[in-house]
């Protein structure tokens, strides 16, 4: 089969590989009909989370048709079923899964010894996202083996196009959880840093959940335009001060709820000196993540507010304003998304026409064009916001 394979920093290739095979009784094989490049794939593209090995298949947002089912998954899946595959691999039986904390499932990370060393305790196995989370081959491929497939799937009905349901596997529930964990009240202003795919989903989620005001922060005019289309007030940080403008829009009080949809690779600009400092330290290996957004959020957030972090961080940050965080009594909520906790409800909202997540797709290409699209997406060329691949 063909798949997009990581070979090193900024080196992703469309390779020919052996087909995946059923290994465990709960496995299933899915023929991928659509998959996407996620913003968090760019951290791997840049090798900022250094636990990838040459030959690893990328991709954690995919859907398709079940073509083979292991004996212990047959009670839930059959050949021909149409499924979206969540990026988190879940057993459905452990303590964490029972509580709905699927992204920290205790049974599915097959490289527990690595995760134990780095995180203290393992988190769930993830598709195509380094050997810290199991080293499972990803879904930017023609075929995908889904471990624990009887639990790790979202069934979707026929007759609804791939594009509308594909993002149930990651960015839609990720944006949704980011907003949900803000516990949005009708009086709340929700400020969202980053208008990439997750930011766009978080904006729509905050609007649906009834925020008084949703404010989106970025500097790319096309992305800000898409944010505005979704009902957000926008701030272009190249043109105005984020802190001043946020205070202005909230009567000097600051936003009650802040969402970081950027993560470890904040934009670097001489107008924000801390970003240059972080970039230099990162290049020298003295800091792994660039936390400019966290600093700004903690500074501007209304006291007793909530900081929600769906953006991916990999390791250590520097100059973290613990004093502001503590004295203002802020609540931080973060984590990889507990995808299956939300998907039944979100699928219903898509079917009922409350939202259509396909709005975010700007490019649809074949798998062969995938490597070049990584570059286009990273460089934000051609107004690229979300790439869908058709294997």
């Amino acid at each position, binding site marked *: *089969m063909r798949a997009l*394979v990581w*070979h090193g920093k*900024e*080196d*992703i*290739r*469309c*390779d020919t590989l*052996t*087909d*995946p095979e059923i290994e465990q009784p709960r*496995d299933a094989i899915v023929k991928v009909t659509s998959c996407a490049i996620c913003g968090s794939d760019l951290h791997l*593209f*840049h090798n900022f989370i250094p636990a990838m*090995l040459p*030959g*690893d298949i990328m991709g954690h947002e995919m859907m398709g048709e079940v073509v083979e089912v292991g004996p212990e998954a047959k009670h839930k899946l059959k050949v021909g079923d149409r499924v979206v595959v969540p990026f988190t691999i879940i057993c459905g039986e452990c303590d964490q899964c029972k509580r*709905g904390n699927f992204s920290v499932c205790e049974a599915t990370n*097959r490289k527990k010894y690595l995760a134990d060393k780095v995180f203290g305790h393992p988190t769930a196995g993830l598709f195509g996202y380094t050997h810290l989370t199991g*080293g499972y*081959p990803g879904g930017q491929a023609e075929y995908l*083996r889904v471990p624990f497939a009887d639990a790790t799937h979202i069934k979707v009905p026929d007759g609804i196009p791939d594009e509308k349901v594909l993002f149930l596997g990651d960015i839609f529930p990720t944006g949704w959880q980011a907003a*949900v*964990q803000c*516990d949005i*009240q009708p009086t709340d202003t929700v400020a969202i840093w980053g208008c990439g795919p997750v930011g*766009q989903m978080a904006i*729509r989620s905050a*609007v*649906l*959940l*009834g925020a008084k005001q949703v404010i989106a922060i970025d500097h790319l*005019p*096309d992305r800000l335009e*898409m944010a505005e*289309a*979704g*009902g957000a007030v926008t701030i272009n940080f190249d043109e105005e001060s984020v802190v001043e403008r946020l205070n202005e829009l909230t009567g000097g009080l600051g936003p009650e*709820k802040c969402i970081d949809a950027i993560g470890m690779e904040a934009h*670097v600009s001489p107008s924000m000196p801390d970003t240059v400092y972080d970039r230099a330290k990162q*290049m*020298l290996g003295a800091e792994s993540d660039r936390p400019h957004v966290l600093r700004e959020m903690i500074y501007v957030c209304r006291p*007793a507010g*909530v900081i929600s972090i769906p953006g991916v961080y990999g390791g250590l940050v520097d100059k973290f304003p613990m004093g502001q965080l503590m004295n203002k009594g802020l*609540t931080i909520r973060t984590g990889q998304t507990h995808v299956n906790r939300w998907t039944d*409800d979100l699928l219903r*909202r898509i079917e009922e026409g*409350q*939202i*259509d997540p396909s709005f975010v797709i*700007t490019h649809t290409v074949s798998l062969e064009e995938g*490597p*070049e699209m990584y*570059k286009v997406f990273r*460089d934000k*060329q*051609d*107004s690229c*916001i979300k790439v869908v691949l058709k294997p």
Partner: protein
Amino acid sequence: MTYSISNIARSKGDPKVLHSGPSSLGAADRMARALGWFSIGLGLAELIAAERITRALGMEGKETLVRAYGVRELGHGIVSLSPDKHLGLWSRVAGDGLDIATLMTAMRHDNPKRDNVGIALAAVLGVTLLDIIGAQGVTARHRRPSSQLRSYRDRTGFPRGVQAARGAARDFKVPPDMRAAPALAAVSDRATQEKAQEKARPH
């Protein structure tokens, strides 16, 4: 072939690479990478063998300067190998200028190693040309032209429009583990109510 070595990290049923296809690295990116490693190599040489270099060029006494250039060269290399490689390559071009100016000072008639300096100058000029080609190449490949923006004004994501979408999911119940502390007013309201109930209750 590193991918075949890393296959030891894969299980039996994991796909394994048979042959490689087109890469996301363009020719300009590969050139940047080569120049980046060249910088690292040269920088290390300048740091470790500063005496040899000054002797070969008849520039005895300038060892500290050569070592400082070595550190600078390492910096060019690190940035050229990073995703911000265009900055790295343009900084290399600037560094080449500095190298040329420094070598020119050694082109004196009384320098017995004048020939060596000439060879070094020719080499630096050649590398400068490569650096300029490389820097222009990566800049062009990764530039984001601001003139070709697409319009996303109609991408609401809400089939019934934004106005209908506002609060449409208020039926959603935030799970208890994700609730924020209630507003102060709500807390004190509840306390007042509870107190009133307490008083109304017969003792």
